[in-house]
């Protein structure tokens, strides 16, 4: 285990990036995640590891700088919050189409539009269902603690490079702003160009002699279809990366499904429920894409009912229903507009919507 520190979630993202040997960060200030870039600027990683930190003129510029950096096989990343993440969709679609690896952090806030700066999970659809145009997916990791903000940085880059696909860390304002103890990972040196050439092969623009055009364009439909099929194969292959946490599910009659901040509330609700004699457990998807469908089917179909607890108007609940093939009752509960549901509210929803609703 690495160095123990007490840190804010957003600061940890910055620290973890330096420690993961990231080559470049490109960002634009937006609440509630401006601390990511500010912490990086304060840490001056360019002196320590040579990592570049650049404040772009917009999120559109940031994601395109990422696009350019990724084409060179470098570990590049950006961070933003919901409205800024929306602006990046075009770039993300192109990155996915051109099959380039990168990490994008979305410390999400309430919407639609400018919405609120308070925490929310309303970007679930945008992150997991594509967001931009065309048939593509991004790997989506959902930390629920400051520790995971640290751990998922390395994981996100590993998966992004393994599948040559953008990886998103979907956090929210609450985890971004809260302070917790964290074991930081050890420093990984930035890869040399030699290593990048070896790891990435010929696709990266690193002085390879081969004519190599980074593109997502294919005008011939027959060839384009083959590209789509190759992407579909890749996404199918990715399913094995699905990760989840099952908490007190072994003896449970009822199941909460929740990710990120909402999952922490559910753990408290479970404690309260069990005091009342209601056996509840939690299934927490860690990867939102690939969604842990199989595991949720196995655990979820043993339950009397499932409550999908979300800080949005009910988005993940659709994937939960699909996962359990509607074999058990599934309902949604949650709050919107940047409000975190209380453990009492969640328990009450379980009692009224699932237990009482049967």
């Amino acid at each position, binding site marked *: 285990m690495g160095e123990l520190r007490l840190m804010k979630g957003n600061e940890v993202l910055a620290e973890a990036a330096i420690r993961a040997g990231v080559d470049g960060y490109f960002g*634009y*200030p937006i609440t509630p995640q401006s601390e990511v*870039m*500010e912490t990086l*600027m304060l840490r001056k990683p360019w002196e320590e590891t040579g990592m570049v930190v650049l*404040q772009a003129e*917009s*999120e559109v510029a940031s994601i395109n700088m990422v696009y350019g950096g990724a084409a060179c096989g470098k570990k590049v990343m950006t961070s933003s919050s919901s409205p800024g993440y929306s602006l990046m969709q075009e770039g993300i679609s192109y990155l996915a189409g051109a099959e380039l690896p990168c990490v994008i952090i979305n410390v999400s806030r309430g919407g639609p539009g400018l919405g609120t700066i308070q925490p929310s999970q309303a970007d679930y659809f945008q992150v997991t269902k594509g967001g931009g145009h065309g048939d593509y997916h991004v790997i989506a990791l959902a930390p629920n603690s400051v520790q995971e903000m640290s751990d998922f940085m390395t994981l996100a880059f590993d998966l992004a490079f393994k599948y040559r696909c953008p990886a998103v860390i979907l956090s929210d304002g609450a985890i971004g702003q809260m302070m917790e103890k964290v074991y930081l990972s050890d420093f990984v040196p930035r890869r040399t160009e030699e290593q990048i050439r070896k790891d990435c092969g010929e696709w990266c623009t690193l002085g390879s002699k081969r004519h190599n055009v980074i593109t997502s364009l294919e005008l011939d439909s027959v060839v384009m279809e083959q590209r789509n099929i190759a992407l579909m194969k890749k996404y199918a292959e990715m399913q094995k990366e699905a990760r989840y946490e099952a908490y007190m599910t072994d003896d449970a009659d009822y199941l909460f499904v929740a990710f990120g901040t909402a999952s922490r509330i559910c753990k408290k609700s479970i404690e309260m429920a069990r005091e009342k004699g209601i056996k509840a457990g939690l299934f927490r998807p860690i990867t939102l894409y690939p969604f842990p469908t199989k595991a949720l089917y196995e655990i979820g179909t043993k339950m009397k009912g499932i409550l999908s607890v979300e800080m949005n108007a009910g988005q993940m609940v659709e994937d939960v229903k699909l996962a359990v093939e509607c074999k058990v009752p599934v309902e949604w509960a949650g709050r919107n507009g940047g409000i975190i549901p209380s453990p009492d509210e969640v328990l009450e929803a379980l009692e009224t919507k699932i237990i009482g609703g049967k």
Partner: protein
Amino acid sequence: MENDVNKLTKEDFVSAQMVKWCPGCGDHFIIASLESILPQLGKKKEDLLVISGIGCSSRSPYYVNTYGFHGIHGRALPIASGAKIANPNLSVWVTTGDGDCLAIGGNHFIHCLRRNMDIKVILYNNQIYGLTKGQYSPTTPMGKITKTSPMGTIEEPFNPGELAIGAGGTFFARALDVNPKLQMEVMLAAAKHKGTAFMEVLQNCVIFNNGAHAYINDKEFKADRQIHLEDGKPMLFGKNMDKGLKLCKNSTKLEVVTLGENNITIDDILVHNPHQEDRGVHLMLAQMKAPEYPVAMGVIRDVDKPVYSELLEGQIAEAKQKTKFHCVQDLLNSGNTWNVE
């Protein structure tokens, strides 16, 4: 009668919303100037629209009691363009900041000027990102230490006036937040201008960039570090109004001279003409930086060129005139016709 345009006062334009800007922020002064001149435009409240993007400056539409539009970061100008085209009767005012207008909105900014949309744009230039708490902006001076430039910025800032004139802007004026008289003068001139009227107000962010403009506004030096340009008047400044601007001989530069020194007389001093189409002198005036030059205040450029909506309406009228079809019946009778029996 609230809507008798001649009876409107400043108070009619102050909304009931609680103002959320920090105490002492320059934004308070700018909005007060705007509210003061609006009754003089002879427009009904419902024919006025204040539009913004995102940032501290962009809270303005909440505080002015007209139609308001709090839009998208950087996109106030396209939104304003759409509104003006859809309802040409509107007097459209955009309140924006150096981040909103020149970073994320930089592209829209130059295109709005190029098209000469009939929109009034007030840029609250505090040289910092205030709302996100203190990162550098595209007008932050090189070398400035901010939250995202702990070793000083390494980016050359934009001079908004230079950019606007370069992009084909037909109106550029500058004022200081603490000088309401000048602000109102500039805003009224902008209101009269046909086309994109771009005003830069040097605004103090007391929290994240306090004193950014103190250098030119310091009591002791301001007479030497500012020049108030007025149409048809010689470009004089200084405590005794004995300094002036003239064109250097054999060069395309301005120089600061003193009346009475080196045989300089008032006849050597340039006379300000904001209406000349040539951009040369206007660009030089917009570019002047203290201490070498005084910073130009007032209306620097105000030239008459066709505005987008006029040209658009002209094309529509022309197309209507030339067409063979004047009503739906003409169109229906234009091709082959059959009788279905």
